[in-house]
């Protein structure tokens, strides 16, 4: 049995799956600020009368890292930053003590100048004086050569408890993002460690001993223990749980548009031939652009609980959510109330809804019915506008090769998969607006927990070979090695896939349910004075994202 749990903004959902069938599920309202407590009580009630030995895996999608950042519960940390030539230091400002050191690693991975000993002595003193025990070390082009970051780690490892290294964030080039990602990672490490310790103790107490995983923004999982090093990878796992759940429930192989209409937000996703799209650079959180690999998603501040109000003689939906809907005992008129009203059926607090609606319709000189229809249409048009904007961004993605430019491949959704409480009420409207079939899968209320349960370990590696310099590197694994001049692309691919397999298995992947793929390979002749002086190879490989094979048995009605 697999246990999947998803913590949302207001609810936590958990379920148990056996052979692809949902055997038990629980939904609880979140009452405490303590994520651990919420998870614990939910799981406790889910596993009542369940044979614990039969639970083989627990996958958690939590808001712990996300909330720590959003609510500014960050640890007191310091950063050591080596910018070298390029942007000035002004661009590297965060709410943490930042030490800039001299020296530079260039784009070739050559340390062209080292930092100064005196700089290190000053930092040591300052750390001690300010009692800082969490450190992030980031250097420009550390993905090309991590030696500066590694040297500094060795120098400082006895002075602090936690060290985050820039090159471990991602293999991608983007120094400002590496800086921000490292900053966030270091800042949430202590809190995440506490969460980890609590969970471990509590689960032990319950008698749970199976592997524990945490869901990432890329729709994959990593062992909770691994997340201790990189807790920042678990931010925004909610949308990825939602997308993976919708994938499991729909099983489409087409270009598709996916909508998760929730209480506060509507999340938009896209599939290309049934496969999810990824963000090109990385996810953004609270204005911080990071290198965290994430599924492409766009969150609109628009949902069932969005407030309906008048602004300058015009009716507006959201963006704020102040309370649940009137029909569920809330205090303000919301989208959900409008949808109930339009059913023309009886429902709780109907008179209250009518009264609130009338307040608005009178000032607009409309009937209640017309206003309700207008609000519904407005909601749909907001979604349509946002989807079109995202599609134009996706379809104008930057390319660097002639063949890609000429091919001009575009994503045109052929169908739409919609989940969320208001999904059914919007089905017809969405179909009319987008002119494609809308599918509302059964069991969608558990999509997120299901997505978490069915996620697989994922990882991606990048590799660079420079035979002129006789060097190769896989920054994510801190591999920096010598190669000989004749090292070939074929050898590089083989080596990269071997390392990827090792890494996937280390992260708990099932050898029988694992697909590795090279997603990018480029080879350049390096030319010097009309002669070939070497080869420059760039490769990327990943565990193909997807669902556990159990997902094949999920009942899709």
């Amino acid at each position, binding site marked *: 049995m697999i246990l999947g749990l998803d913590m949302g903004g207001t609810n936590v959902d958990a379920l148990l799956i056996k052979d692809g069938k949902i055997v038990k599920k629980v939904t609880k309202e979140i009452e405490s600020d303590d994520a651990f407590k919420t998870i614990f009580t939910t799981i406790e009630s889910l596993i009542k009368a369940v044979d614990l030995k039969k639970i083989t895996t627990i996958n958690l999608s939590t808001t712990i890292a996300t909330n720590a950042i959003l609510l500014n519960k960050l640890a007191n940390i310091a950063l050591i930053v080596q910018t070298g030539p*390029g942007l000035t230091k002004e661009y590297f400002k965060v709410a943490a003590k930042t030490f800039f050191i001299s020296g530079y690693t260039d784009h070739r991975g050559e340390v062209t100048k080292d930092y100064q000993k005196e700089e290190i002595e000053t930092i040591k003193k300052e750390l001690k004086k300010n009692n800082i025990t969490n450190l992030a070390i980031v250097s420009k082009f550390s993905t090309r050569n991590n030696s500066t970051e590694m040297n500094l780690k060795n120098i400082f490892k006895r002075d602090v408890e936690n060290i985050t290294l820039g090159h471990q964030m991602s293999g991608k080039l983007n120094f400002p993002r590496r800086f921000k990602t490292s900053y966030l990672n270091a800042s949430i490490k202590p809190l995440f460690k506490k969460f980890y310790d609590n969970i471990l103790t509590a689960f032990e107490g319950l008698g749970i001993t199976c592997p524990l995983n945490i869901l990432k923004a890329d729709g994959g999982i990593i062992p909770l223990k691994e997340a201790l090093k990189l807790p920042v990878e678990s931010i925004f796992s909610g949308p990825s749980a939602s997308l993976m759940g919708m994938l499991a429930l729909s099983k489409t192989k087409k270009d598709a548009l996916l909508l998760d209409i929730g209480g506060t937000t509507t999340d938009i996703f896209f599939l290309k031939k049934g496969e999810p799209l990824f963000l090109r650079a990385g996810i953004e959180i609270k204005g911080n652009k990071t290198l965290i690999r994430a599924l492409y998603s766009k969150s609109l501040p628009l949902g069932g609980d969005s407030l309906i109000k008048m602004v300058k003689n015009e009716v507006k939906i959201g963006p704020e959510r102040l309370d649940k809907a009137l029909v569920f005992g809330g205090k303000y008129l919301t989208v959900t109330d409008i949808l109930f009203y339009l059913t023309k059926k009886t429902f709780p607090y109907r008179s209250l809804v009518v009264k609130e609606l009338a307040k608005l319709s009178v000032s607009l000189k409309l009937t209640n019915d017309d206003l309700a229809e207008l609000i519904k249409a407005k909601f749909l048009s907001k979604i349509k506008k946002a989807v079109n904007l995202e599609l134009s961004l996706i379809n104008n993605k930057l390319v660097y090769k002639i063949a890609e430019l000429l091919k001009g491949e575009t994503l045109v959704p052929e169908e739409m998969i919609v989940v969320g409480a208001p999904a059914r009420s919007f089905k017809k409207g969405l179909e009319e607006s987008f002119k494609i079939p809308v599918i509302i899968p059964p069991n969608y209320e558990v999509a997120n927990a299901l997505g978490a349960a069915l996620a697989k370990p994922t990882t991606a590696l990048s590799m660079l070979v420079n035979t002129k310099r006789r060097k190769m590197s896989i920054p994510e694994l801190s591999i920096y090695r010598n190669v000989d001049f004749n090292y070939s692309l074929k050898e590089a691919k083989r080596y990269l896939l071997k390392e990827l397999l090792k890494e996937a298995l280390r992260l708990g992947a099932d050898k029988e349910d694992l697909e590795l793929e090279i997603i990018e390979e480029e080879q350049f002749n390096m030319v010097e004075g*009309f002669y070939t002086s070497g080869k420059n190879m760039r490769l990327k490989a990943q565990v193909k994202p997807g669902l556990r094979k159990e997902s094949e048995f999920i009942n899709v009605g």
Partner: protein
Amino acid sequence: MSVKKKLGIILFPAYDWEISKTHPERKERLLYTQDQIFEEGLGDFENIVFYNPKIASEKALKRVHFIHPKLENIVTKSHLIAAGGAIKCLDLVMRKEVNKAFSITRPPGHHAMRVTYGDRGFCILNNEAIMIEAIRQKYGNLKVAIIDTDCHHGDGTENIYYNDPNTLFISLHQDGRTLYPGTGFLDDLGGPGAYGYNINIPLPPKTGEEGFLMVLEHLILPILADFEPDLIINSAGQDNHYSDPLTMMNFSAHGYAKLTDKLNPDVAVLEGGYSIEGALPYINLGIILALAGLDYSNVVEPDFESEKVSQSVEVTNYLKKLMEEIHYNWKNKEKLALKKFQNKSYITEEKNIYYDTSNISEKQTITYKKCDYCSGLIKITSKNNRNDKILAITIPLDACRECEKEGENLYHNSAKGDYDNIYLQNRIKDQYLKR
């Protein structure tokens, strides 16, 4: 430091195109520039937007070039993309979607002349000219200044705009006596319709940062102030760098950034530059930051030393004299033109042109009609060592009725004789014919 400006960038390295396996204009050429741009995170700046290029149309090429014998045999997709990228850049500026734009594409174009038989100095299509003519077609006959800061003389651009008074062409280059293509001297001031509007600034080898910036501030900027262009275009070659393998100059990335900042072009178009690991990443970064109005003070090559950009007193003194002479020519262009073209109604020049990359030798006779009402009709007869022979007629955008009529008659009534083809470029009607 100037204010932030919205900058559009087309960065298209064409990783799947090369002239040959070991040619310096190679697949790898923009690889390290792209690495640097990615690592600096420039794509995340609010005022910097990256775009894909578009593909230039056949008509866009024909507004500038006579491509013979067949377009398909000479021009590759990469050339069309480099030209199309430039057009898109200027179009973004004209539409005010951005304040400035930078086209970082390959191959370069400033050695491509009006007649194109093949590849010269890694160029087949003149990207800047194709860009300017596309925009003029849409927005009218704008006054354009092109400042070519490539280390090689922009002989192609010179050739195309030699007789156009609406286009001021200034080429800053290593003296032609010491470098390909061996042209670009002071006396080449333009045709009878635009005498003085072609300005060559042949710099001595080992000109340093001081020299470049002095020429810019005390010669180029005052001339631009006189000319009052609607648009300033920078042919941004990057081979004046001290580490460039093909040239002998002492310029730096920071110097390029400063030059860009002071020149303040509307559009920059990458030309040459073959120190692809040691120079291009830093120069391109410097130009981008300068164009976007961002702080470039920290753009320094890792191997930078001030001696690498210094220049001798002899060079400084030589430059001062050179500047004086060029400035004199500019201020007295009308007088000089009068003297040179007095009592002539047609001015004929002979030209030998060598296509180093395609190994073609061309012999051209260019005849400019001296006209009181417009810049005048241009007639070119050209033959080469592959036995191509053409007659090519250009009716310029500002042509008077008389010149237009004369050009059309010439096209229709010239005996085909032993010409392979007769071409007509009618810029007024935007019509391009061949018979």
